[in-house]
């Protein structure tokens, strides 16, 4: 028990930590999906300069990018119950699982970053294609969703990938409000055996492998969506 590094313990505790990997993945994928919707809406509000709403969008992006995620998680955790209590909708806040606050914080966080990628990608599509779409009788919304956004996705995909991988790693902060993902599980297991180094090595390996898999998937997606750019 007093050896410097216990390989055997490391291998034995690995499955126990891996068991919480789905929670990490779920937070990542779920927040990314919601974040994409938020990011798209935010980007469109800014592009079309919708009065009032575009100012709110600018404030939201600036605030989110200018404050630490850790602070945002706390704001979500302590702030949402207060807002709900203020609105008095009779929901028992004690029963809201912590993971909900995590989804809120992470979706809003990644949404702000994604909105900037989406905005610059949409603005990179040449105006000629929009006129083209109008001239064949398509409406603004139709040309946005059928012509511009599909091409913008191709352009923004590498950025989306970076945001997604960053988000996945950031989920390691979720333990601070009691969500048991990979990191929290490592802490729990480590506290039992006091072999913290071994369990954290395990969690590092798990994060790294997830990241490698994500990179492969993204690479494949990028290749698939760039088909129309080949000359």
């Amino acid at each position, binding site marked *: 028990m007093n050896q410097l590094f216990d390989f055997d313990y490391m291998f034995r505790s690995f499955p126990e930590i891996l068991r919480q990997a789905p929670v990490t993945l779920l937070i990542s994928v779920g927040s990314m999906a919601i974040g994409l919707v938020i990011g798209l809406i935010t980007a469109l509000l800014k592009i079309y300069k919708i009065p009032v709403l575009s100012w709110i969008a600018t404030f939201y992006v600036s605030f989110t990018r200018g404050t630490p995620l850790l602070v945002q998680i706390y704001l979500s955790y302590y702030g949402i119950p207060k807002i709900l209590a203020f609105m008095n909708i009779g929901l028992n806040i004690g029963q809201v699982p912590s993971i909900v606050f995590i989804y809120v914080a992470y979706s809003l966080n990644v949404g702000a970053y994604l909105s900037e990628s989406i905005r610059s990608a949409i603005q990179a599509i040449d105006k000629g294609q929009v*006129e*083209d779409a109008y*001239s064949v009788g398509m409406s603004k919304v*139709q040309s946005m969703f*059928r012509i511009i956004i599909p091409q913008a996705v191709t352009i923004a995909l590498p950025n989306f990938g970076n945001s997604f991988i960053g988000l996945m790693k950031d989920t390691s902060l979720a333990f601070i409000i009691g969500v048991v993902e990979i990191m929290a599980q490592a802490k729990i297991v480590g506290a039992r055996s006091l072999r913290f180094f071994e369990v954290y090595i395990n969690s590092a390996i798990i994060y790294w492998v997830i990241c490698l898999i994500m990179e492969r998937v993204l690479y494949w997606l990028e290749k698939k969506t760039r088909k129309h750019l080949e000359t």
Partner: protein
Amino acid sequence: MIDIIDLHKAFKKNKVLKGVNLHVDPGEVVIIIGPSGSGKSTMLRCINYLERPNRGIIRVDDLKVDARNVHSKQIVALRNKTAMVFQHYNLFKNKTVVENVMEGLIVAQKMDKKLAYDTGVSYLEKVGLLDKLNEYPAKLSGGQKQRVGIARALALNPKVILFDEPTSALDPELVGEVLEVMKDVAKEGMTMIVVTHEISFAREVADHVYFMDDGIFVEDGKPSELINSPREERTRRFLSRVTLRVT
């Protein structure tokens, strides 16, 4: 039938169109020539409201749009009755050749997919691109892209096709193939308004030629009259410049 009545358009303080009038009968090919910056593109783009005129009436077929009182429904209707071929062959880059032709049919005209595909194929055959159906625009030459643009315009079955210098951005050796296709289109009775510097094309194909300078039509006439014996000094000067450049 197409009518443009007293069309005015300014960009901020810059008055570009200063009262343009034009009448085009069905099946007619009208060609517009004029120096750079005179407002030719702006006029064409006002016809389908890519630019919004400040004043004037556009009539296409039974649809009359008055700039003083326009509904967005009218603009969509106008765009459904017209088609445009651009100088810089704007094709949808994320769509294949045949999808480019189908897109307007499916989305704007609500045509059934299968029928849109067949329609697309038949027009692409007409412009000689049957072997490129499933290519993306990035793989085409300028001339081929422009022919897709023409096929797409034709497939929409418009009352008029507006051409804005369709050959000016092309390498010289590709100009011929596009002009040939345009000649075929004209022969089949399509109504066309064409902005071009190709004087010999105008001579051969046009029913009527207009010379635009500084936001108005200075003079117009049969191609033989206007090109061979222009009345106005400005027209003469312009023609001697372009013909010099061509030969």
